[in-house]
């Protein structure tokens, strides 16, 4: 074995310098590294799939080993997974259910009609190599809570909360904790054997499933999230995760009464878009400049950035020379020449001919 495999990747240091100073092309170095070991890369984070297992009828848990560019993460955080669809490199966010050094587990839920998860779930095999983005997310276990913790999850939201729960129990959390997982069909209940084992091992844990679309099984609840579900569980702190609508409901029910502890939440879908017609005010977030401003959906993003004092790189101002290309991070934009809409996060757009449709965040 010509290269050390257990020490840190310092031997890549000189190569990194050569690439940064323009002596070597990063893609060429990555091609060589990838040929040596599938998930080796100079700067990008890639991970090898170690195993797959179904944790629900429509949810696949994937265990991965990341390369040494992985900077670490906490369970409950989410990480971008990249995949190519029809020539385009797309990315989607998945929550980490377990993190042990460079060994990660995340869970992917089917999205019927979607462009990403379906193909990933249907084609992923052990040994495959996936590119990962930087982890993000602020959910933390409320260690300071004097009393119980309530976890409310719907659909894939359970992945983030399961990760946090597992880690907290392992680290000695002995106060009451309740997990309520809302799903439409019984077969969508996720991590059932794992959660039952946790309940057997940790008596302070109680897990209930809330089935909305079909008759509930034994010990399960029927219907959608309601105030009575919270009334029965006198928790100090709340963690809510799931589609936007569910999270809004959970927070509303939680805040209906005075609470002593904190409420944390993460919405897995964006709020419904609305009111982009007629030059409505939109929020502009220029991520790299650290500038947040208000704008409209009529003028180009270049004009609006300049109106707020920024000096973005640009050229022809006609959408031809591509000098003003930046990445769309969040939101939707409209091409002023063709009317075509761009809404895929991470896609490039030309700010001189793009106007925001609703709130946007761009890498400028």
């Amino acid at each position, binding site marked *: 074995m010509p290269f050390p495999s257990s020490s840190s990747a310092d031997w890549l240091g000189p190569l990194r310098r050569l690439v940064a100073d*323009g*002596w070597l*092309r*990063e*893609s*060429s170095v990555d*091609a060589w590294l990838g040929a040596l070991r599938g998930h080796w890369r100079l700067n*990008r984070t890639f991970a090898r799939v170690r195993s797959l297992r179904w944790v629900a009828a429509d949810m696949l848990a994937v265990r991965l080993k990341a390369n040494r560019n992985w900077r670490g993460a906490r369970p409950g955080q989410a990480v971008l997974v990249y995949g*190519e669809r*029809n*020539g*385009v*490199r*797309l990315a989607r966010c998945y929550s980490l259910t377990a993190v042990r050094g460079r060994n990660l587990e995340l869970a992917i839920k089917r999205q019927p009609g979607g462009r990403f998860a379906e193909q990933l779930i249907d084609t992923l095999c052990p040994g495959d190599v996936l590119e990962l983005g930087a982890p993000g997310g602020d959910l933390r276990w409320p260690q300071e809570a004097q009393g119980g913790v309530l976890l409310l999850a719907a659909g894939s939201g359970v992945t983030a909360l399961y990760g946090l729960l597992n880690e907290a129990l392992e680290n000695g959390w002995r106060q009451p904790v309740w997990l309520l997982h809302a799903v439409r069909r019984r077969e969508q209940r996720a991590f059932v054997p794992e959660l039952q084992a946790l309940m057997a091992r940790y008596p302070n844990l109680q897990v209930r499933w809330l089935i909305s679309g079909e008759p509930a099984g034994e010990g399960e609840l029927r219907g959608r999230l309601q105030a009575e579900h919270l009334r029965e569980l006198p928790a100090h702190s709340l963690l809510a995760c799931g589609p936007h609508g569910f999270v809004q409901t959970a927070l509303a029910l939680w805040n209906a009464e005075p609470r002593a502890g904190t409420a944390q939440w993460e919405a897995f879908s964006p709020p419904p878009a609305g009111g982009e017609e007629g030059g409505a005010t939109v929020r502009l977030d220029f991520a790299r400049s650290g500038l947040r401003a208000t704008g409209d959906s009529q003028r180009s993003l270049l004009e609006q950035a300049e109106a707020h004092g920024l000096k973005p790189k640009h*050229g*022809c101002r*006609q959408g*031809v*020379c*591509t*000098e003003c*290309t930046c990445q769309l991070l969040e939101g939707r934009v409209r091409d002023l*020449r*063709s009317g*075509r809409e761009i809404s895929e996060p*991470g*896609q*490039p757009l030309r700010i001189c001919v793009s106007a925001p449709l609703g709130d946007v965040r761009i890498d400028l």
Partner: protein
Amino acid sequence: MRTDRELTPAELEAFGAELDALRERTLADLGEADARYIRRVRGAVRLCCTAGRVLLMFGWFPPTWLLGTLLLGLGKILENMELGHNVMHGQYDWMNDPEFNGQRYEWDIVGPSDFWRVTHNHLHHTYTNVIGKDDDIGYGLLRLFPEQRWKPFYRRQVLWATLQALLFQYAVAVQHVKLDKYFKGRIGKDEVQPLLRQMNAKILRQWAKDYLFFPLLALLIGANALAVLTGNLVANLMRNLWTFAVIFCGHFTEKAAVFPPEVLENESRGHWYLRQLRGSSNLEGGPLFHILTGNLSHQIEHHLYPDLPARRYAEMAREVRQIAARYGQEYNTGRMSRQIATVFRRIWVYRKPQAV
């Protein structure tokens, strides 16, 4: 003389709309085939350059030296034209793959990519063939159109053109530094120095690679360093001459039109398209020829759609020709031998002063 029909404003708008529609249809069709294609081009570049360099390690033995130099030259040509030039135009930005990001791609010539992005993507493609604004008309060295004001310097332009052809990658590199303006006193040292520094750094890296690293590697393994160095030099020369020839056929053929700066005021989209069509000329040939020219053989389609993957130009050309015919516009195309002869003729004729 060109035989274009003058278009009414309404016709011009319809003309623009038809070309826009072709653009949108092509954009909607981009996908896996285009991604696979550019990766194959990148693979071909790597293969040619690696094979060429390996063969050169076998020394002066004519079969390996000639084949090695040829392969390396071919690799450099492909990297410059079908890969580098097209990627830097943002033609593959939609893939969202950092390897093919137009803003970050650095190509294998002495000219910094950043300079090219400004002089070519921005300036040349915006001011195409506008006298006084498009620096590519003659590159400050040659008088190719009677509309360019004559100076005694142009008398020797056959010599200047020859030197430019031999050293074309350096001509490309230095264009952005605008040394002529500096010597005339119109721009200051503080503007020129950082550009010179960036250019010199790139030249250094390229020389170190082709004329230092690989010859030294040859020495280390007991191969002939001089054979390697000469092979690299000739490969670079091959690429210089070929790119010069193809690029000069793009806008300097007999029927290429130039425009006065007034056309830029409130130029409509239809007229922008028209100017690109009239100012560009195509070359005829087979699929391999098109790839070797980086599809600049479809200069017209490239100028109409600089940010669409160049492999699409051949199929789009069929429709562009029809649209041009319907609107009474001449479609300037021909075999390379004929087109380049008209370019040489321009270099010869306009070296002397002429009434416009």
